[in-house]
Structure formats: structure tokens, C-alpha cells
């Protein structure tokens, strides 16, 4: 298990390094001069000011040198300073990581808590109304783009039934109750989409396992249908469900972009979008780095869970 862990960790680190390198060069090779944007047409006409700012922002060196400097500072935990506000990027990114993670974790918990039971229901009674309903919910959840789900939830729970706030953010230390109320709709939006995926996968996978010999044996030795399903079939059928969580991690994070914009949630994705509009290079790189790290760590976690459940994978 330790070897497995080491191998996966190394792969994850390489992945982050490559991804952030690509992003660095991509950003710097794309057209659009941040100096021009910061100073405006008039300010940029003074070459002395431009030169000084270029030097201050570390944009005067050749690209490879800039890259080496950037990496050198990251290793020391310094992501540079925002072009716009002058504040350290690392501080801003660190402030927003928990806010994004909060929604992701809440959404995942919802997806798993609702999706797995729904999927089992669908697999056990494929021809009954309940089974059909579970498929229908899965397909709708799966196909509904996050902004559609989100808008329908806002219309349902803050317009028709004015129960929950439609957007905004309240820091948890300021008012924990308000904080949670603001987090419910965005988390549900993420969760619904993911729930569709989980339900679908659970249903297919439980159906596959239910006809296996060992389940028949379990039934034959006198176990009840319920016990055979939950004790014997379910653990075996969860492996592909966990795998799909890993495969879909990208969608989960990608969905955050829309959801944070829709609900005005000041997380990592909205930081990234704003930084893009501002041409704030270091902020973009910092936010993307954090997003990649979260993504890779999530995949790693999924791998580890799979390794724990399925010993065969540890030696693959």
C-alpha cells in the first residue's frame, strides 16, 4: 500500500507541474499586454513609466527566465502579487480555497447520499415505477446543465417559496446560520448534476453484480434478498461508482465556474474569471495552480479509495 501511495503521489506531483507549466506558457504567449491594460492608452505612451512597471511586474525578462523565477518563488510559497490590488496572490487564493471546497464537499455528500440509494432502488426494481423514476431522475440530473438546475432552484426556493437567499456570501464567523443558508442552493446545484452520474453508475453496476454467481450463492444459502444485496453485492458494485467520481472530477470543478458566477459565490473560480478579465497574470496562474492541485488531490483520493476497496488495483 505504501508503494502504491508513493507511486500515485509522484504521478500527481508531475501532473501538477506539467499542467501549471503549460498554463504559464499559454498565458504568456497569448496576445494582450497587461501593462497597456493597467496604465491605459495614455499612461502607456510614456516609455519610462512602462519600463519601470514592466520591471516591477517582472515582465521584462525573457520568458524562460520569468518561468524559472516564478517556479523558484512558488517553491518558497510565494505566488507573487496581484497586478490589480498589489496584495499577495497566495493570501487571496488561500482565503478562497475553503469556500470552493465547501460547496464541492457538500455537493458530493448530497450526490452520494441520494444517488447511491436511488441507484440501488433502480437496480432492484428495474421494471417498477420506482425503478423507472430513479432512471428518469438520473437522466434529468445528468443532462441538466448546472446553470439550468441552479436557475430552477433559485426560482423554486427563493422566488416562489422565499425560503433561501438567491445569491451572495456571508462569512461563517460573522453569521454561521446565514452562511449555511447561502450555501444550500449552490451545493444542491452541484450535487444534483453529480447525483445523476452516481445514480446511473450505481444502477448499472448493481445490476451487473446482482446476477453474479456469488450473489446467487448468498441467496442459496438462505440470506434474504435485502442482505444479499447490501452485504454481498453492494460493496463489489461500488468500485466503478468510485471510479466514475474520479473520471468526473473535472466536470465537478468545471461546474464550479458556472455555479460561483450564478450564485455570486466568492470562490476560486470567480477569482479566476475576474483575474482573466483584468489580465492579472499572477492571479490567474495562482488560481489555476490551486484548482489543479485540488483536482489532482481529488483524483488521488479516489485512487486511494479504490486501492483500499480493491486490492488488485494496488499492484497494477
Amino acid at each position, binding site marked *: 500500500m505504501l508503494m502504491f501511495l508513493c507511486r500515485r503521489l509522484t504521478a500527481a506531483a508531475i*501532473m501538477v507541474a506539467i499542467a501549471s507549466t503549460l*498554463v504559464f506558457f499559454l498565458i504568456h504567449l*497569448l496576445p494582450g499586454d497587461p501593462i497597456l491594460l493597467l496604465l491605459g492608452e495614455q499612461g502607456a505612451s510614456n516609455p519610462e513609466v512602462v519600463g519601470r512597471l514592466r520591471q516591477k511586474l517582472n515582465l521584462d525578462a525573457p520568458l524562460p527566465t520569468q518561468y524559472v523565477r516564478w517556479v523558484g518563488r512558488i517553491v518558497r510559497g510565494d505566488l507573487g502579487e496581484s497586478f490589480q490590488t498589489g496584495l499577495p496572490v497566495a493570501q487571496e487564493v488561500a482565503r478562497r480555497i475553503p469556500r470552493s471546497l465547501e460547496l464541492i464537499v457538500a455537493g458530493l455528500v448530497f450526490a452520494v447520499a441520494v444517488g447511491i440509494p436511488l441507484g440501488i432502488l433502480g437496480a432492484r426494481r428495474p421494471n417498477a415505477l420506482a425503478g423507472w423514476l430513479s432512471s428518469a431522475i438520473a437522466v434529468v440530473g445528468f443532462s441538466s446543465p448546472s*446553470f439550468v438546475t441552479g436557475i430552477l432552484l433559485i426560482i423554486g426556493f427563493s422566488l416562489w417559496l422565499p425560503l433561501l437567499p438567491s445569491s451572495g456570501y456571508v462569512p461563517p464567523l460573522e453569521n454561521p446560520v446565514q452562511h449555511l443558508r447561502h450555501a444550500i442552493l449552490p451545493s444542491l446545484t452541484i450535487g444534483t448534476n453529480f447525483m445523476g452520474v452516481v445514480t446511473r453508475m450505481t444502477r448499472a453496476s448493481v445490476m451487473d453484480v446482482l446476477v453474479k454467481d456469488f450473489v446467487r450463492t448468498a441467496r442459496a444459502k438462505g440470506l434474504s434478498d435485502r442482505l444479499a444485496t447490501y452485504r454481498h453485492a453492494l460493496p463489489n458494485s461500488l468500485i466503478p461508482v468510485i471510479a466514475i467520481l474520479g473520471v468526473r472530477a473535472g466536470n465537478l470543478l468545471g461546474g464550479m465556474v458556472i455555479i460561483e458566477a450564478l450564485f455570486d459565490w466568492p470562490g476560486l473560480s470567480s477569482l*479566476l474569471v475576474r483575474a482573466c478579465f483584468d489580465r492579472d497574470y499572477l492571479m490567474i496562474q495562482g488560481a489555476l495552480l490551486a484548482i489543479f492541485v485540488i483536482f489532482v488531490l481529488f483524483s488521488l483520493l479516489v485512487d486511494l479509495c479504490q486501492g483500499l476497496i480493491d486490492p488488485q488495483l494496488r499492484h497494477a
Partner: protein
Amino acid sequence: MPVRLLKRHFRLFLAGPILILLLATAVLANLLAPYDPLGIDAGNILQSPSSTHLLGTDELGRDILSRLIFGARVSLSVAAAAVVIASLLGVAVGILSSYAGGHIENLTMRSIDIFVCLPEIFVAIVVMAFMENSLRTLVLTIGLLYFPQFARVAYSVAASLKRKEYVVAAVSLGASPLHVIGRAILPNMASVIVVQISFTLSFAMLLEAGLSFLGLGLMPPAPSWGQMVGTLKDYLFTNAWPVVFPALALFLSIFAINTLGDWLQDHLNPEMPR
């Protein structure tokens, strides 16, 4: 018999009509739209559905129905063009790298693996924010972002076909690589690629909608469903009607494409797991 047929191809009968309607709308947009999609009417903003404006009007008094109809054209053409780029490029890269073998094969497929993992929307946001917002940039960006998935699928099929007896036999009889690819590899790859195309179509459509929603897709006033949702959501508490329709249009399209993809998957490659 008809009932059995209906049951067996349930997904096709569900998705087909929606897709035909969507396609017809996109093609015949000029004939179907009751109003000019860009025509501003300051006296009639954010109207609910009525007999004059069947689906209401937006924040500038433009007819929602007309904008939806023209939006179908934008959504479909962007997604379709992007998928064409992604599939052509991906299939070519996949087959060539499986043919090249050795270091080239390894290097190409390892780098493809990295690209497949990256969440597309983040790269798309960065690119779209820095480049000029034109249709060409949008299509190219989405197409390039989805090509690695095609490359991986094409590669895995090509790599397994390469070892099949009939391919080995053809090669040993002196068939040129072009002949082998055209006669043996491509036809056998078609079904897998078709399924991949249908799923990528829905991803591309979603990505376009997402980018336009954030204000990073097509520039207004060109109508795009994602952009309509993005703008109209701010007026939700004034009138919730206008935002519902573009959202539903998106949902129905994605749903229909996904359902068609499932049907294709079941009937073209029944042995492949989902």
C-alpha cells in the same frame, strides 16, 4: 411488434423528434423567427409570454422566441464545427501515433493523457479572455480542447486492431499503410467514433453555453442561449419568465443529444461498458 420496436428504441424515439426540431429551427431560423432577434423595443422590456411575444421579451425588449430560434443556429453550429475539428484531428493523431510506434507513440499518448485530464473550461476561460471574442476563436478553442479525447479513443481502437490477424495478413501481403488504414482501421473504428462524436457534441454545446454565460463566448448582441441565461438571470426577480426559456432550450438539447448517444452506444457497441 410496434410496441416492442418502440420499447427497444425508446431512446431514439424520445431524442429523435427533439433533435429534428432543433436542427430544423437552426436551418430555417430566418423563416421561423417572428421578429428580428436584434430588434430593440424599449417600450416592451421583460414582458411575460403573451400573444404578441409568445415567449416574452428580454431586458432590451427583444423577442425571446426569435432569439432562441437564432440561438439554436449559434449553439449547434459552434458545437458541430468544434466537433468536426476535434474528431478529424483526434482520429488522425490517434491512428498516426499508433502507427508510428516506439518513442513517438509513447510521447504523444502520454501528453494526450495529461490533456484529457485537465478540466477544459479553465483553459477555455483563459484563452477566451485573452483572444478576441470571435466565432473562429471560440470554435477553434473548443475543438482543440476536445481533440485529445478523440485521439485517445482512436488510438486505443487502432492499437488493438493493429494486432488483429486480418490486418497483419494485409500488411504481410504488401498492403500500403494508407490501404490498411482506409480499408481495415477506419471502418472498424467508425462506430466508436460516432458514439464519441455524439457525447462530445453535448460537451461542446455545454462549454459554449458556459463560456457565453460568463460573458466569454460570443459577443453580444449575437444571440446565444448561454449568454441569454447569463444576462437574464440578473432580472430574475423582476420577471422570471424570460430566463426560463433559454435554460429549458439548453436542457432539452443536451438531454436529447445525450439520449441519442446512449442509444448509439447500446446499438453500435453493445459490448463496450458505459
